[in-house]
């Protein structure tokens, strides 16, 4: 098994774990962490594709993309955390209890 | 295409713009509102008259605007459409006068007159539309603009009636929509009169075109109140009298009947419709509705409800006339569009006058009313005799043509239906006439007519007298050129000779 295949498979597994977590867990923080895991999977996938057949060096484009992606993901996660904290302050709730 | 003319558009604008302007008025601006109403109504009659004269001398009027590819808004004048437009614009003028008197001091008059004008716009639009899609646009527009009139009183009963009305009409409209889109998908854009399109496609797509015919027919049947789609009509009688008179006796139900005429004569063509046995199905439903409506009418004690069931029955005369092939029945059907309108509007005016002046809404309360309101009940009596088919009132002419045509076509069962229906008509109208003229009033309310006073307000009285006289004269002078019958015969000659 080649290196990039290991990365690719890992990225898929991470993505699926994260996605399952987002849908299945109820707790705010768990959900937010799950999105971060999804993000890690995606970024790993990008990085694993940086090694391309025709190139003797790593393709720079995915790395540029990943940096941008991480910035976006961090911002989203920070925003989500801020929201969760504010909800906790206002109501004392820390998870989606009533599904509506 | 031919030259564009803005005249058909102007005919629509003559009621559309006053309607919108009235909506923006304040409630107390009585003079302005009355002016706008009458101006619009008179302008419309004048325009229709002008165009009619132009049409007779060979002018063509077309207005075409593309909304989207294949979706063309087309107004086009032909004899049948003008016939219907003339009917609705003339009766609009009369009903507007009546409504001004009727709603004196009522609530929300702006809203009433605004939507009333929009309704008339829609029904003239239906008359003038040149293709299937334009017809559909106005057909739906009519549904929407009638709704506020049905719920006008705002009572729980009115609101409930509005709900029933909507379920029927929106449901019908949706089925019609499906049918119309289907027609466009199979046959492309269809202008009225281009029967050759369907004729050339019928052998290739027999199933599709059959389904589409019945979809469109069902959509139209709702407004034409053909059994089992008639349920909205009696319920809607909760609306004010002018609405029942113009819309539920003339504009709305006629829109459905007119649509059926268009569908059979101008879209599918008589040949195809007969060959595919569409007409026999229509005939069975129409015949059943005629009898059913009359029987139901017998049992109504509410004056307007009895009239409503009578409408259910009478409108199907038109459908039945269309369904029996032959020039005579077709002439009868088309002339009945006008005759039935004149007679039924007279009856609704009369019912409204009685309710407005004495508060009587039940037939059992009508004893001796003829002595107190001789002119109103006189007009009613003429119309009732017409409905029964007594010569020389208008209704006789239509029934004569329909019956004669049925004999000619060999459909003797239809003749039986007509005879049975006439007997039933007599059975439910004559008691009213009898009570009005020959029964002693129940209560001691013998308010003697003081000399020099009218039996009710002039604005309520004049319209009923005018339409009563018209019902009589259009029957008496049916042979004269320019009478509804003569025009109907010309229209039919076109369909059968072309």
């Amino acid at each position, binding site marked *: 098994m080649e290196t990039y295949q290991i990365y690719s498979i890992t990225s898929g597994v991470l993505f699926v774990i994260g996605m399952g977590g987002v849908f299945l867990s109820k707790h705010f923080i768990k959900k937010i962490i799950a999105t971060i895991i999804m993000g890690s999977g995606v970024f790993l996938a990008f990085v*694993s594709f940086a090694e391309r057949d025709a190139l003797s060096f790593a393709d720079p484009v995915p790395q540029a993309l990943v940096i941008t992606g991480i910035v976006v993901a961090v911002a989203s996660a920070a925003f*989500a955390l801020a929201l969760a904290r504010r*909800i906790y302050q206002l109501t004392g709730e820390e998870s989606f209890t009533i599904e509506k | 295409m031919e030259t564009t003319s803005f005249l058909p558009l102007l005919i629509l604008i003559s009621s559309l713009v006053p309607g919108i302007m009235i909506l923006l008025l304040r409630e107390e601006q009585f003079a302005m509102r009355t002016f706008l109403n009458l101006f619009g109504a008179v302008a419309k009659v004048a325009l229709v008259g002008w165009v009619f004269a132009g049409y007779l001398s060979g002018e063509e009027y077309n207005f075409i605007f593309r*909304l*989207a590819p294949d*979706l063309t808004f087309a107004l086009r004048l032909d004899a049948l459409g003008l016939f219907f437009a003339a009917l609705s614009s003339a009766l609009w003028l009369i009903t507007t006068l009546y409504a001004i008197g009727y709603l004196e001091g009522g609530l929300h008059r702006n*809203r009433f007159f605004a939507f009333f004008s929009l309704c008339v716009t829609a029904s003239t639009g239906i008359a003038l539309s040149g293709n299937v899609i334009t017809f559909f646009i106005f057909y739906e527009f009519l549904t929407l603009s009638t709704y506020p009139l049905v719920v006008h009183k705002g009572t729980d009963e009115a609101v409930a009636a509005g709900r029933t009305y909507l379920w029927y009409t929106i449901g019908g409209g*949706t089925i019609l929509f499906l049918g119309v889109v289907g027609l466009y*998908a199979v046959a492309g854009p269809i202008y009225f009169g281009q029967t050759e399109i369907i004729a050339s496609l019928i052998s290739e797509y027999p199933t599709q075109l059959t389904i589409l015919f019945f979809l469109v027919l069902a959509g139209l049947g709702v407004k034409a109140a053909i059994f089992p789609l008639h349920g909205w009509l009696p319920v809607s009688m909760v609306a004010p009298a002018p609405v029942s008179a113009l819309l539920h006796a003339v504009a709305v139900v006629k829109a459905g009947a007119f649509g059926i005429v268009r569908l059979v004569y101008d879209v599918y063509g008589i040949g195809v419709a007969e060959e595919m046995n569409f007409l026999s199905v229509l005939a069975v439903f129409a015949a059943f509705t005629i009898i059913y409506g009359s029987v139901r009418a017998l049992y109504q004690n509410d004056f307007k409800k009895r009239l409503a069931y009578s409408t259910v029955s009478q409108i199907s005369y038109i459908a039945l006339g269309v369904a029996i092939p032959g020039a005579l029945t077709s002439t009868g059907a088309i002339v009945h569009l006008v005759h039935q309108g004149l007679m039924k509007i007279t009856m609704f005016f009369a019912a409204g006058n009685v309710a407005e002046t004495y508060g009587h809404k039940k037939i059992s309360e009508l004893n001796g009313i003829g002595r107190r309101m001789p002119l109103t009940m006189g007009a009613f009596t003429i119309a009732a005799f017409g409905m029964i088919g007594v010569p020389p009132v208008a209704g006789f002419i239509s029934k004569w043509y329909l019956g004669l045509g049925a004999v000619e076509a060999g459909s003797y069962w239809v003749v039986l239906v007509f005879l049975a229906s006439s007997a039933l008509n007599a059975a439910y109208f004559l008691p009213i006439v009898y009570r009005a003229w020959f029964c002693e009033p129940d209560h001691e309310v013998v308010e003697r007519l003081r000399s020099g006073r009218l039996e009710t307000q002039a604005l309520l009285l004049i319209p009923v007298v005018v339409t009563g006289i018209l019902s009589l004269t259009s029957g008496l002078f049916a042979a004269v050129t320019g009478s509804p019958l003569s025009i109907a015969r010309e229209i039919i000659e076109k369909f059968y000779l072309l």
Partner: protein
Amino acid sequence: MTGLPTSPLPALLVGFPILLAILTLFFRPGVKALVGLAGCLLTALLAFIAFVEVTQRGTVIHTPGGWDPPLGILLRMDALAAVFIGMTALVGGFISLYAWRYLRAQDPATGGYPLFWPLWLFLWAGLNGLFLSNDLFNLFVTIEVISICAVALAVLSGKAGALKAGLRYLLAAITGSMAYLFGVALLYGSTGTLDLDHLGQVLEPGTTTTFALLVVTLGLLIKMAGFPFHFWLPPAHSNALAPVSALLSALVVKGAFYILLRLWMEVFGVGITYAAGQLIGLAGAIAVIWGSWQAFMQTSLKLLVAHSSVAQLGYLLMIFPLLILPPGVTADSADWLSVTWTGGVYQVISHAIAKASFFLSAGIVIMAVGHDRIESLRDLVGNMRITSMAIGLAGVSLIGLPPSGGFVGKWMLLKGILLSGQWWWAPVVVAGSLLTAGYVFMLLRLAFAPAREKEPFRPVPKTLEVVALLLAVSSFLIVFPADYLIQFLENSEIFGSGIEAVLKGGFYGND
């Protein structure tokens, strides 16, 4: 991308609102609103200029800084982008006017939610950027900007209900983005390009492509609240402030639809399977029925309108199955294809206008009576004539009755359905219309009914009522330029190569 005329307008459409958004941050609250409003109106004006530019010159492009792809970013404004940008400007302009007056009346103490303006301008920049983007990653970045601004706007009131709905919205949005980005990674891995045009040419069918298609579509479906991922939309849209609800329903969800349309028509045009299309159509059909039924069952006005959005988005999903022929079938002409996709775009516009008007009117009613139970509509006609008219007109357009814009959209959709031979979608369209009529007329019935108890209608600024009515009237007036718009889209031949591929049955077709 050579040979296309360049123009600075695409860059301005993105840059100008961003600059203004930053600028508003420096003013104190009262002035902020004024600067923000002025900025919104200027942005709208700019968008109209750009629209005219495209109608005159055809597709225009811009490469910021002169850097060509793949390192630089190419902004491409074709007919489709121009139509969406124009729609955003029209609806956004009206909503900005409304927001200016509404927010001041709602919260006079702090100068009316001053943060609304920078967030809305950023959102607008994001939307314009999305419509102009021509590569997969750029689309990702813009849709993230949109999502974050949209959530921030949705929680602007700071109430617990709004915050919870906002968090749910944000989590759904992140999940959607990640799924989309995963698909982008796969596509880049197998082709080495992100450029939409290039990708459309080099994309080969295969397991990777199919999988990428699935995750990208899944992500975008989550973002546009397609059934069964619609759960986040009703709470988020109904808990937001009225102008924000209007923005979210009218414009924001359309961003994801835009990407989906572009990808399916331009990129996956050859690699898509019949079954996937049918599945999306099924999701749309269920959304139409389920959303309308839910809307019918609501007792709260804004929740009703929000559920109606779920249903209306379902109609948009139903165009996807029509873009694919069943396996083994080829067609000579593509008459239903252009009807379908231009009809879909037209449906987007008419829904945006009607729904914005609906939400703005709901905001007015709530402001007047103080709560949003549907019962509060009783005797609305007697008390607020203008708003009643607005609700009536917008509702009629949503049902799709003539002569409204919604009618033209439904007409084209239904015609596409019948022409393509996939007649089984037709009953859904019809049933959806009936259910929509059910809830719209339920509102109108109450509006005409007499008041049970005399609840006072508080006076509401006239500006608000007039703006809502103008939007409602616009949803009818757009019938007039319909022919022009549809021709404009058709003649642009944006999806030329895609259509040919569909006619040949696609990759999976004729075996």
